[in-house]
Protein backbone atom coordinates (compact mmCIF):
# COMPACT_ATOMS: atom_id res chain seq x y z
CA UNK A 1 0.00 0.00 0.00
CA UNK A 2 1.32 3.41 -0.99
CA UNK A 3 0.44 6.08 1.55
CA UNK A 4 -0.77 9.44 0.25
CA UNK A 5 -0.20 12.74 2.06
CA UNK A 6 -2.12 15.98 1.41
CA UNK A 7 -0.41 19.05 -0.05
CA UNK A 8 -1.50 22.20 -1.83
CA UNK A 9 -0.86 22.84 -5.52
CA UNK A 10 -0.59 26.51 -6.39
CA UNK A 11 -1.19 27.43 -10.06
CA UNK A 12 -0.33 30.81 -11.52
CA UNK A 13 -0.99 31.97 -15.09
CA UNK A 14 0.81 35.11 -16.23
CA UNK A 15 2.80 36.64 -19.09
CA UNK A 16 6.12 34.93 -19.62
CA UNK A 17 8.24 37.93 -18.72
CA UNK A 18 7.02 37.61 -15.12
CA UNK A 19 8.89 34.33 -14.81
CA UNK A 20 12.02 35.60 -13.06
CA UNK A 21 10.00 37.47 -10.46
CA UNK A 22 7.78 34.52 -9.69
CA UNK A 23 10.75 32.20 -9.33
CA UNK A 24 12.41 34.68 -7.03
CA UNK A 25 9.27 34.70 -4.93
CA UNK A 26 9.17 30.90 -4.73
CA UNK A 27 12.78 30.80 -3.58
CA UNK A 28 12.20 33.51 -1.03
CA UNK A 29 9.25 31.72 0.52
CA UNK A 30 10.83 28.28 0.73
CA UNK A 31 9.30 26.31 -2.16
CA UNK A 32 11.11 23.03 -2.83
CA UNK A 33 10.73 23.40 -6.58
CA UNK A 34 8.42 24.61 -9.33
CA UNK A 35 7.31 23.60 -12.80
CA UNK A 36 6.61 25.92 -15.71
CA UNK A 37 4.58 25.26 -18.84
CA UNK A 38 4.33 27.46 -21.89
CA UNK A 39 0.76 28.58 -22.46
CA UNK A 40 -1.47 30.99 -24.28
CA UNK A 41 -4.88 32.29 -23.43
CA UNK A 42 -7.33 35.10 -23.22
CA UNK A 43 -8.67 37.16 -20.37
CA UNK A 44 -9.43 40.66 -19.23
CA UNK A 45 -6.06 41.92 -20.47
CA UNK A 46 -6.71 40.65 -23.98
CA UNK A 47 -5.47 37.80 -26.13
CA UNK A 48 -2.12 36.19 -25.36
CA UNK A 49 -1.83 34.11 -28.50
CA UNK A 50 1.85 33.11 -28.41
CA UNK A 51 2.01 34.13 -32.05
CA UNK A 52 5.63 34.78 -32.98
CA UNK A 53 6.46 34.22 -29.31
CA UNK A 54 5.61 37.89 -28.68
CA UNK A 55 2.72 37.32 -26.35
CA UNK A 56 3.13 34.02 -24.56
CA UNK A 57 1.78 33.09 -21.17
CA UNK A 58 3.22 30.67 -18.67
CA UNK A 59 1.40 28.33 -16.32
CA UNK A 60 3.43 27.81 -13.15
CA UNK A 61 2.80 24.94 -10.76
CA UNK A 62 4.19 24.82 -7.24
CA UNK A 63 3.44 22.14 -4.69
CA UNK A 64 3.71 23.50 -1.18
CA UNK A 65 2.83 22.31 2.29
CA UNK A 66 -0.27 24.03 3.59
CA UNK A 67 1.76 26.10 6.06
CA UNK A 68 3.75 27.78 3.23
CA UNK A 69 0.75 28.56 1.07
CA UNK A 70 -0.53 31.57 2.99
CA UNK A 71 2.63 33.64 2.66
CA UNK A 72 2.91 32.87 -1.05
CA UNK A 73 -0.70 33.90 -1.64
CA UNK A 74 -0.14 37.15 0.25
CA UNK A 75 2.85 37.96 -1.88
CA UNK A 76 0.82 37.20 -5.03
CA UNK A 77 -2.04 39.36 -3.84
CA UNK A 78 0.36 42.27 -3.39
CA UNK A 79 1.50 41.85 -6.98
CA UNK A 80 -2.09 41.77 -8.24
CA UNK A 81 -2.82 44.96 -6.32
CA UNK A 82 0.07 46.64 -8.07
CA UNK A 83 -1.54 45.93 -11.42
CA UNK A 84 0.04 42.66 -12.51
CA UNK A 85 -2.30 40.26 -14.26
CA UNK A 86 -2.02 36.97 -12.43
CA UNK A 87 -4.64 34.26 -12.69
CA UNK A 88 -4.26 32.15 -9.57
CA UNK A 89 -5.91 28.99 -8.31
CA UNK A 90 -5.12 26.45 -5.65
CA UNK A 91 -6.09 22.79 -5.56
CA UNK A 92 -5.77 19.88 -3.18
CA UNK A 93 -3.38 17.13 -4.17
CA UNK A 94 -1.99 14.02 -2.58
CA UNK A 95 1.66 13.02 -2.77
CA UNK A 96 3.71 9.96 -1.91
CA UNK A 97 6.90 11.79 -0.87
CA UNK A 98 5.83 14.67 1.42
CA UNK A 99 9.37 15.29 2.72
CA UNK A 100 10.39 16.28 -0.82
CA UNK A 101 8.16 19.36 -0.72
CA UNK A 102 9.39 20.78 2.56
CA UNK A 103 13.07 21.15 1.58
CA UNK A 104 13.59 24.72 0.31
CA UNK A 105 15.39 25.18 -3.01
CA UNK A 106 19.12 25.90 -2.80
Amino acid sequence: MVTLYPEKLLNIISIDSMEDRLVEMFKKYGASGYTILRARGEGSSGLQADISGFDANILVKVIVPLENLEVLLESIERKINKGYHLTVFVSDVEVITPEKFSKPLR
Partner: protein
Amino acid sequence: MSSLSNLLLPAVLFFALGVIARLIRSDLRFPPDLAKILSIYLLMSIGLHGGYELAKADIMIALNSIVWALILGFTLPIIGYLMLVATRKVNPLDAAAISAHYGSVSAGTFLTAVAYLDSAGITYETYPLIMLAVMESPAIVVGLLLAAKARQTLAAKDGSQVSSISDNSGAENQSNFGSLLRDAFTNGSVVVLIGSMIIGAISTPSGMNKLFPFIDDIFMGVLCLFLFEMGMVAARRIGDFRKVGLVLAAFGIVMPLIGGLVGVYIGTSILDFSVGGATLVGVLAASASYIAVPPAMRLAVPEANPSFYLTLSLGITFPFNVIVGIPLYHNLAQALAV
Protein backbone atom coordinates in the same frame (compact mmCIF):
# COMPACT_ATOMS: atom_id res chain seq x y z
CA MET B 1 12.56 55.16 -56.94
CA SER B 2 8.96 56.17 -56.63
CA SER B 3 6.90 55.20 -53.65
CA LEU B 4 4.87 52.98 -55.95
CA SER B 5 7.83 50.79 -56.70
CA ASN B 6 8.36 50.50 -52.94
CA LEU B 7 5.14 48.56 -53.02
CA LEU B 8 6.63 46.13 -55.50
CA LEU B 9 9.52 45.12 -53.28
CA PRO B 10 9.14 41.44 -52.38
CA ALA B 11 9.69 42.26 -48.71
CA VAL B 12 6.83 44.77 -48.68
CA LEU B 13 4.64 42.46 -50.71
CA PHE B 14 5.17 39.65 -48.22
CA PHE B 15 4.20 42.01 -45.44
CA ALA B 16 1.00 42.72 -47.35
CA LEU B 17 0.46 38.99 -47.88
CA GLY B 18 0.67 38.45 -44.14
CA VAL B 19 -1.91 41.17 -43.56
CA ILE B 20 -4.22 39.68 -46.19
CA ALA B 21 -3.83 36.16 -44.80
CA ARG B 22 -5.25 37.41 -41.50
CA LEU B 23 -7.97 39.50 -43.08
CA ILE B 24 -9.35 36.54 -45.03
CA ARG B 25 -9.06 34.57 -41.77
CA SER B 26 -6.71 31.97 -43.17
CA ASP B 27 -5.65 29.27 -40.73
CA LEU B 28 -2.04 29.97 -41.67
CA ARG B 29 0.05 30.03 -38.49
CA PHE B 30 3.79 30.34 -38.31
CA PRO B 31 5.33 28.30 -35.48
CA PRO B 32 5.59 30.58 -32.43
CA ASP B 33 9.38 30.45 -32.31
CA LEU B 34 10.00 31.12 -36.00
CA ALA B 35 9.87 34.92 -35.72
CA LYS B 36 12.45 34.78 -32.95
CA ILE B 37 14.76 32.59 -35.01
CA LEU B 38 14.39 34.87 -38.04
CA SER B 39 15.08 37.99 -36.05
CA ILE B 40 18.17 36.51 -34.41
CA TYR B 41 19.43 35.73 -37.91
CA LEU B 42 18.60 39.21 -39.22
CA LEU B 43 20.26 41.03 -36.32
CA MET B 44 23.31 38.81 -36.52
CA SER B 45 23.68 39.30 -40.27
CA ILE B 46 23.25 43.02 -40.28
CA GLY B 47 25.49 43.33 -37.24
CA LEU B 48 28.33 41.34 -38.80
CA HIS B 49 28.04 43.31 -41.98
CA GLY B 50 27.92 46.63 -40.22
CA GLY B 51 30.81 45.77 -37.94
CA TYR B 52 32.92 44.75 -40.89
CA GLU B 53 32.29 48.14 -42.50
CA LEU B 54 32.62 50.05 -39.27
CA ALA B 55 36.13 48.75 -38.74
CA LYS B 56 37.03 51.24 -41.45
CA ALA B 57 34.82 54.01 -40.06
CA ASP B 58 35.65 57.42 -38.65
CA ILE B 59 35.51 57.22 -34.86
CA MET B 60 34.42 60.84 -34.45
CA ILE B 61 31.41 60.45 -36.73
CA ALA B 62 30.56 57.22 -34.92
CA LEU B 63 30.63 58.94 -31.54
CA ASN B 64 28.62 61.83 -32.87
CA SER B 65 26.00 59.40 -34.19
CA ILE B 66 25.80 57.74 -30.83
CA VAL B 67 25.26 61.05 -29.07
CA TRP B 68 22.46 61.99 -31.43
CA ALA B 69 20.92 58.53 -31.12
CA LEU B 70 20.82 59.05 -27.36
CA ILE B 71 19.31 62.49 -27.76
CA LEU B 72 16.61 61.08 -30.04
CA GLY B 73 15.97 58.16 -27.71
CA PHE B 74 15.50 60.42 -24.71
CA THR B 75 13.62 63.26 -26.38
CA LEU B 76 11.07 61.50 -28.57
CA PRO B 77 9.27 59.75 -25.69
CA ILE B 78 8.93 63.05 -23.85
CA ILE B 79 7.40 64.68 -26.92
CA GLY B 80 5.07 61.70 -27.27
CA TYR B 81 4.14 61.75 -23.61
CA LEU B 82 3.22 65.44 -23.66
CA MET B 83 1.13 64.98 -26.79
CA LEU B 84 -0.69 61.99 -25.33
CA VAL B 85 -1.42 63.66 -22.03
CA ALA B 86 -2.72 66.65 -23.94
CA THR B 87 -5.24 64.48 -25.81
CA ARG B 88 -6.78 63.47 -22.44
CA LYS B 89 -7.69 60.14 -24.07
CA VAL B 90 -5.38 58.04 -21.90
CA ASN B 91 -4.22 58.27 -18.32
CA PRO B 92 -0.60 59.31 -17.62
CA LEU B 93 0.57 55.72 -17.05
CA ASP B 94 -0.72 54.62 -20.45
CA ALA B 95 0.88 57.73 -21.94
CA ALA B 96 4.23 56.81 -20.39
CA ALA B 97 4.08 53.22 -21.64
CA ILE B 98 3.00 54.19 -25.15
CA SER B 99 5.54 56.95 -25.65
CA ALA B 100 8.45 54.76 -24.54
CA HIS B 101 7.86 52.68 -27.66
CA TYR B 102 8.50 55.65 -29.92
CA GLY B 103 11.88 56.50 -28.48
CA SER B 104 13.02 53.00 -29.30
CA VAL B 105 13.25 51.48 -32.77
CA SER B 106 11.89 48.71 -34.96
CA ALA B 107 14.62 46.61 -36.54
CA GLY B 108 12.06 45.22 -39.01
CA THR B 109 11.29 48.69 -40.31
CA PHE B 110 14.98 49.56 -40.47
CA LEU B 111 15.72 46.43 -42.51
CA THR B 112 12.85 47.11 -44.88
CA ALA B 113 14.31 50.58 -45.41
CA VAL B 114 17.70 49.04 -46.14
CA ALA B 115 16.07 46.71 -48.67
CA TYR B 116 14.30 49.70 -50.20
CA LEU B 117 17.54 51.69 -50.55
CA ASP B 118 19.47 48.66 -51.86
CA SER B 119 16.92 47.89 -54.50
CA ALA B 120 16.84 51.53 -55.59
CA GLY B 121 20.63 51.54 -55.78
CA ILE B 122 20.96 54.27 -53.15
CA THR B 123 24.07 54.13 -50.95
CA TYR B 124 24.02 54.87 -47.24
CA GLU B 125 26.44 55.15 -44.33
CA THR B 126 26.86 52.38 -41.74
CA TYR B 127 26.57 54.73 -38.78
CA PRO B 128 22.76 54.46 -38.58
CA LEU B 129 23.34 50.82 -37.65
CA ILE B 130 25.16 51.88 -34.49
CA MET B 131 22.30 54.22 -33.81
CA LEU B 132 19.89 51.29 -34.15
CA ALA B 133 21.83 49.39 -31.50
CA VAL B 134 22.08 52.42 -29.21
CA MET B 135 18.42 53.40 -29.45
CA GLU B 136 16.99 50.09 -28.21
CA SER B 137 17.57 50.89 -24.55
CA PRO B 138 17.28 54.55 -23.50
CA ALA B 139 13.59 54.76 -24.34
CA ILE B 140 12.90 52.06 -21.77
CA VAL B 141 14.63 54.16 -19.15
CA VAL B 142 12.63 57.24 -20.09
CA GLY B 143 9.48 55.14 -19.96
CA LEU B 144 10.31 54.11 -16.41
CA LEU B 145 10.94 57.68 -15.37
CA LEU B 146 7.77 58.97 -16.99
CA ALA B 147 5.77 56.20 -15.32
CA ALA B 148 7.28 57.08 -11.94
CA LYS B 149 6.26 60.67 -12.51
CA ALA B 150 2.79 59.62 -13.62
CA ARG B 151 2.38 57.54 -10.48
CA GLN B 152 3.29 60.53 -8.33
CA THR B 153 0.77 62.70 -10.15
CA LEU B 154 -1.93 60.08 -9.70
CA ALA B 155 -1.01 59.56 -6.06
CA ALA B 156 -1.20 63.29 -5.39
CA LYS B 157 -4.69 63.36 -6.94
CA ASP B 158 -5.87 60.11 -5.38
CA GLY B 159 -4.65 60.66 -1.89
CA SER B 160 -4.04 57.91 0.61
CA GLN B 161 -4.82 54.65 -1.13
CA VAL B 162 -2.25 54.53 -3.88
CA SER B 163 0.52 56.00 -1.81
CA SER B 164 -0.04 53.40 0.87
CA ILE B 165 0.60 50.72 -1.72
CA SER B 166 3.79 52.48 -2.74
CA ASP B 167 4.78 52.63 0.91
CA ASN B 168 4.32 48.92 1.30
CA SER B 169 6.48 48.18 -1.64
CA GLY B 170 8.95 51.01 -1.72
CA ALA B 171 11.97 48.80 -1.29
CA GLU B 172 10.71 46.27 -3.79
CA ASN B 173 10.06 49.00 -6.36
CA GLN B 174 13.56 50.28 -5.84
CA SER B 175 15.09 46.91 -6.65
CA ASN B 176 12.67 46.45 -9.54
CA PHE B 177 13.82 49.72 -10.99
CA GLY B 178 17.41 48.58 -10.81
CA SER B 179 16.69 45.28 -12.46
CA LEU B 180 14.61 46.96 -15.15
CA LEU B 181 17.47 49.34 -15.90
CA ARG B 182 19.86 46.41 -16.24
CA ASP B 183 17.34 44.65 -18.46
CA ALA B 184 17.17 47.69 -20.70
CA PHE B 185 20.88 47.56 -21.44
CA THR B 186 21.33 43.79 -21.62
CA ASN B 187 18.31 43.31 -23.81
CA GLY B 188 18.66 40.30 -26.12
CA SER B 189 18.44 42.21 -29.41
CA VAL B 190 21.07 44.67 -28.23
CA VAL B 191 23.43 41.85 -27.30
CA VAL B 192 23.05 40.09 -30.66
CA LEU B 193 23.44 43.31 -32.62
CA ILE B 194 26.37 44.86 -30.76
CA GLY B 195 28.05 41.49 -30.29
CA SER B 196 27.84 40.74 -34.00
CA MET B 197 29.12 44.19 -34.87
CA ILE B 198 32.18 43.68 -32.69
CA ILE B 199 32.76 40.23 -34.15
CA GLY B 200 32.40 41.63 -37.66
CA ALA B 201 34.94 44.30 -36.81
CA ILE B 202 37.64 42.12 -35.23
CA SER B 203 37.30 38.80 -37.10
CA THR B 204 40.01 37.75 -39.51
CA PRO B 205 39.02 38.57 -43.10
CA SER B 206 39.33 34.90 -44.09
CA GLY B 207 36.89 34.02 -41.33
CA MET B 208 34.46 36.67 -42.48
CA ASN B 209 34.67 35.50 -46.08
CA LYS B 210 33.26 32.13 -45.05
CA LEU B 211 30.36 33.91 -43.41
CA PHE B 212 29.29 36.15 -46.26
CA PRO B 213 27.15 33.58 -48.12
CA PHE B 214 25.18 33.05 -44.93
CA ILE B 215 24.74 36.70 -44.04
CA ASP B 216 24.33 38.04 -47.58
CA ASP B 217 22.86 35.53 -49.99
CA ILE B 218 19.86 34.38 -48.01
CA PHE B 219 19.30 37.68 -46.21
CA MET B 220 16.55 39.00 -48.46
CA GLY B 221 14.65 35.73 -48.36
CA VAL B 222 14.75 35.60 -44.59
CA LEU B 223 13.63 39.23 -44.43
CA CYS B 224 10.65 38.36 -46.64
CA LEU B 225 9.70 35.49 -44.38
CA PHE B 226 10.06 37.74 -41.33
CA LEU B 227 7.89 40.46 -42.82
CA PHE B 228 5.35 37.87 -43.93
CA GLU B 229 4.95 36.88 -40.32
CA MET B 230 5.02 40.46 -39.07
CA GLY B 231 2.22 41.24 -41.51
CA MET B 232 0.10 38.61 -39.78
CA VAL B 233 1.04 39.95 -36.37
CA ALA B 234 0.26 43.53 -37.37
CA ALA B 235 -3.08 42.56 -38.90
CA ARG B 236 -4.17 40.96 -35.64
CA ARG B 237 -3.68 44.36 -34.05
CA ILE B 238 -5.19 46.43 -36.82
CA GLY B 239 -8.51 44.96 -35.79
CA ASP B 240 -8.15 46.52 -32.35
CA PHE B 241 -8.06 49.89 -34.07
CA ARG B 242 -11.59 50.59 -32.94
CA LYS B 243 -10.77 49.81 -29.34
CA VAL B 244 -8.07 52.47 -29.13
CA GLY B 245 -10.19 55.18 -30.75
CA LEU B 246 -9.55 57.66 -33.51
CA VAL B 247 -7.44 60.12 -31.57
CA LEU B 248 -4.97 57.48 -30.42
CA ALA B 249 -4.89 55.95 -33.90
CA ALA B 250 -4.02 59.38 -35.28
CA PHE B 251 -1.18 59.59 -32.76
CA GLY B 252 0.17 56.35 -34.28
CA ILE B 253 0.62 58.19 -37.57
CA VAL B 254 1.47 61.72 -36.40
CA MET B 255 4.19 60.56 -34.03
CA PRO B 256 6.24 58.75 -36.73
CA LEU B 257 5.81 61.73 -39.01
CA ILE B 258 7.31 63.99 -36.34
CA GLY B 259 10.04 61.44 -35.62
CA GLY B 260 10.76 61.00 -39.32
CA LEU B 261 11.04 64.73 -39.87
CA VAL B 262 13.33 65.24 -36.88
CA GLY B 263 15.40 62.20 -37.79
CA VAL B 264 15.90 63.17 -41.42
CA TYR B 265 16.83 66.68 -40.34
CA ILE B 266 19.44 65.43 -37.89
CA GLY B 267 20.74 62.95 -40.45
CA THR B 268 21.09 65.57 -43.17
CA SER B 269 22.01 68.77 -41.41
CA ILE B 270 23.75 67.72 -38.24
CA LEU B 271 25.34 64.36 -39.02
CA ASP B 272 25.90 65.34 -42.62
CA PHE B 273 24.90 61.95 -44.01
CA SER B 274 24.03 61.18 -47.63
CA VAL B 275 20.40 60.94 -48.69
CA GLY B 276 20.42 57.20 -47.94
CA GLY B 277 21.93 57.65 -44.49
CA ALA B 278 19.56 60.47 -43.58
CA THR B 279 16.61 58.34 -44.69
CA LEU B 280 17.74 55.64 -42.28
CA VAL B 281 18.04 58.10 -39.39
CA GLY B 282 14.53 59.25 -40.22
CA VAL B 283 13.33 55.65 -40.13
CA LEU B 284 14.98 55.07 -36.75
CA ALA B 285 13.33 58.12 -35.23
CA ALA B 286 9.98 57.33 -36.83
CA SER B 287 9.75 53.67 -35.94
CA ALA B 288 8.35 52.26 -32.71
CA SER B 289 9.65 49.20 -30.90
CA TYR B 290 7.47 46.10 -30.78
CA ILE B 291 9.95 43.53 -29.52
CA ALA B 292 12.02 44.98 -26.68
CA VAL B 293 9.77 47.65 -25.19
CA PRO B 294 6.38 45.90 -24.80
CA PRO B 295 7.57 43.24 -22.32
CA ALA B 296 9.62 45.87 -20.49
CA MET B 297 6.53 48.05 -20.10
CA ARG B 298 4.43 45.08 -18.98
CA LEU B 299 6.82 44.62 -16.10
CA ALA B 300 7.57 48.24 -15.39
CA VAL B 301 4.13 49.74 -15.88
CA PRO B 302 1.74 46.86 -15.21
CA GLU B 303 -1.08 49.35 -14.67
CA ALA B 304 -0.98 50.42 -18.32
CA ASN B 305 -3.22 48.70 -20.85
CA PRO B 306 -1.10 46.62 -23.27
CA SER B 307 -3.77 46.85 -26.00
CA PHE B 308 -2.98 50.53 -26.37
CA TYR B 309 0.72 50.28 -27.01
CA LEU B 310 0.62 47.04 -28.96
CA THR B 311 -2.10 48.30 -31.28
CA LEU B 312 -0.33 51.60 -31.86
CA SER B 313 3.14 50.24 -32.37
CA LEU B 314 2.36 47.01 -34.24
CA GLY B 315 -1.00 47.70 -35.80
CA ILE B 316 -0.63 51.30 -36.92
CA THR B 317 2.89 52.73 -36.86
CA PHE B 318 4.66 49.63 -38.19
CA PRO B 319 2.47 49.16 -41.31
CA PHE B 320 2.40 52.92 -41.85
CA ASN B 321 6.19 53.12 -41.87
CA VAL B 322 6.70 50.05 -44.05
CA ILE B 323 4.23 51.12 -46.70
CA VAL B 324 4.08 54.92 -46.59
CA GLY B 325 6.79 56.15 -44.26
CA ILE B 326 9.96 54.81 -45.83
CA PRO B 327 9.49 56.36 -49.30
CA LEU B 328 8.25 59.52 -47.58
CA TYR B 329 11.34 59.96 -45.40
CA HIS B 330 13.42 59.23 -48.45
CA ASN B 331 11.72 62.02 -50.42
CA LEU B 332 12.17 64.29 -47.43
CA ALA B 333 15.87 63.47 -47.29
CA GLN B 334 16.17 64.26 -50.98
CA ALA B 335 14.39 67.58 -50.50
CA LEU B 336 16.55 68.56 -47.53
CA ALA B 337 19.73 67.49 -49.29
CA VAL B 338 19.28 70.04 -52.02
